[in-house]
């Protein structure tokens, strides 16, 4: 069905289509509309699911862990401080190999209180063993959430997936949305190690130094296998529903001398900047990074690269810029912009490209190169 919806509504609709057995969530701005809409669907009977109104995000993820291990598809949504509050359980979910799908509406961290977009919240969960995808449109929020269930539950993966979208700028924007009937694109939930009193096991017992690392390696093995699974699922999604996605969304990159790498809505707005730059004769392209874990292989050889980081790792640099630098060897121009919802327009992005200084870092608005 073709309609218009906010990013949050699109996600609630994707969850309704995926039919999880249990949803456990706690409200937090700017994610709240997702859980409100889901509660509405559950109450009206449009979604036959159990909604657990937990008392905290730590409990939200703990309840998802119990439910997922208990043998049903499970979903939660959070943001910012909520994500950080569940940090312990986020690690647990991945270690327990549970295909939980969580939407994180990216938001800055206090103090001071700030409810606007930033990616530092998600990046602080970087090493937990979760797959992470960042979306740029309402439609993509819907599509990625649907695909997340399929990818997470694939037996070659069995790891949780976090779908990230920018607070307010995507969670609250209204755009067109085509909803689909997923049919058998999402098969019934099957967890090989679901709890079964007929086959009693102890889950996550004391595991000594001679054994523990083997299970850590298995997470990494699955994370590597996940690249192929993601590609497969995205290809099948394109065949069935006509919309294709990849590890990056490349725009006018083929002959580009300079490529802008950004994530989320800034990555989408960068395409407008690219058009402007092309009009001026600057051969620019945009590469919107979608998958952050597993981190994709990027072909950036022989180009200048401008990375916009809506995040920061203090004492180190922009997380995306440094990931790209270590993975590809290129020395990007690293712009730190959009923190806490800082307004960044396509004109600003075009300026970043015009004034690029490869190898350097620039905090937008601070007007200092470092």
């Amino acid at each position: 069905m073709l309609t218009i919806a906010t990013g949050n509504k699109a996600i609630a609709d994707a969850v309704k289509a995926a039919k999880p057995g249990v949803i456990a969530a706690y409200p937090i701005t700017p994610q709240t509309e997702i859980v409100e809409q889901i509660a509405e669907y559950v109450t009206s009977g449009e979604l036959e699911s159990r909604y657990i109104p937990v008392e905290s995000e730590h409990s939200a993820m703990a309840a998802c862990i119990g439910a997922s291990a208990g043998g049903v598809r499970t979903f939660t949504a959070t943001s910012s401080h909520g994500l950080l509050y569940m940090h312990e359980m986020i690690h647990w979910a991945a270690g327990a190999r549970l295909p939980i799908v969580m939407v994180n509406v990216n938001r800055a961290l206090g103090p001071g209180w700030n409810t606007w977009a930033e990616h530092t919240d998600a990046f602080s969960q970087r090493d937990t063993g979760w797959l992470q995808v960042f979306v740029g449109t309402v439609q993509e929020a819907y599509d990625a959430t649907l695909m997340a269930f399929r990818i997470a539950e694939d037996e070659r993966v069995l790891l949780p997936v976090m779908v990230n979208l920018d607070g307010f700028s995507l969670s609250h924007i209204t755009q067109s949305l085509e909803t689909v009937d997923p049919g058998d694109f999402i098969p019934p939930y099957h967890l090989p190690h679901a709890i079964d009193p007929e086959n009693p096991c102890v889950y996550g017992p004391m595991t000594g130094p001679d054994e523990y690392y083997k299970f850590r390696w298995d997470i990494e093995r699955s994370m590597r296998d996940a690249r192929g699974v993601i590609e497969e699922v995205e290809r099948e999604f394109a065949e069935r529903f006509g919309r294709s996605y990849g590890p990056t969304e490349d725009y006018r990159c083929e002959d580009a001398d300079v490529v802008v790498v950004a994530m989320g809505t800034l990555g989408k707005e960068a395409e407008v900047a690219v058009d402007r730059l092309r009009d001026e004769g600057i051969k620019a392209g945009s590469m919107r990074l979608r998958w952050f874990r597993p981190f994709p292989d990027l072909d950036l050889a022989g180009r200048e690269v401008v990375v916009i980081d809506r995040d920061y790792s203090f004492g180190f640099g922009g997380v995306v810029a440094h990931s790209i630098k270590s993975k590809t060897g290129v020395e990007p121009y690293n712009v730190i912009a959009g923190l806490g919802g800082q307004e960044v327009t396509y004109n600003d992005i075009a300026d970043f490209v015009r004034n690029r200084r490869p190898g350097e870092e620039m905090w937008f608005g601070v007007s200092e190169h470092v």
Partner: protein
Amino acid sequence: MYEIRIHSRGGQGGVTAAKLIALAAFRDGKHATACPFYGAERRGAPVVSFVRIDDEPIKIYSQIHEPDLVIVLDTSIMDVVDVLQGLKPNGEVLLNSPHPIAGCNGTCHHVDLTGIALAENLVVAGSPILNTPVLGALAKMGIVTLPSARTAIREMFSDERNVKAAEAAYEELKA
């Protein structure tokens, strides 16, 4: 691309108005986005929402700094907010007011949305509903079509008085 900036107070329905306009434009076969700017403010504080309409997919998420149209749902805001800031030289203004207001450069339209809402008894929790009649005014201005305005209103609201209010605003709009 046609860009609209809506000024209202929290609780007056500016955010829903933006969604309704985008939906009507979408039903006209255009691409449209509606994007509220949320401050930390509460009910009663000035708020601003944005609508973009285009024939091509819209990739811009930042705020509208140079609007083609400024809608003011509550003219008392004009004392505290420079609603005309950045308005394009040939831009237009739509005021919720029974009479014209001095100081608006360029084309300034006005219509008494509050009066229309009260006449139809469209009041929720003490506040007259302005977001459905405003769609009628925009239809008159040619930004959306009247049939799509009706469709959009019916998709979001079940009360037919909203359509009547839009039709009244369509009739009463004055430049």
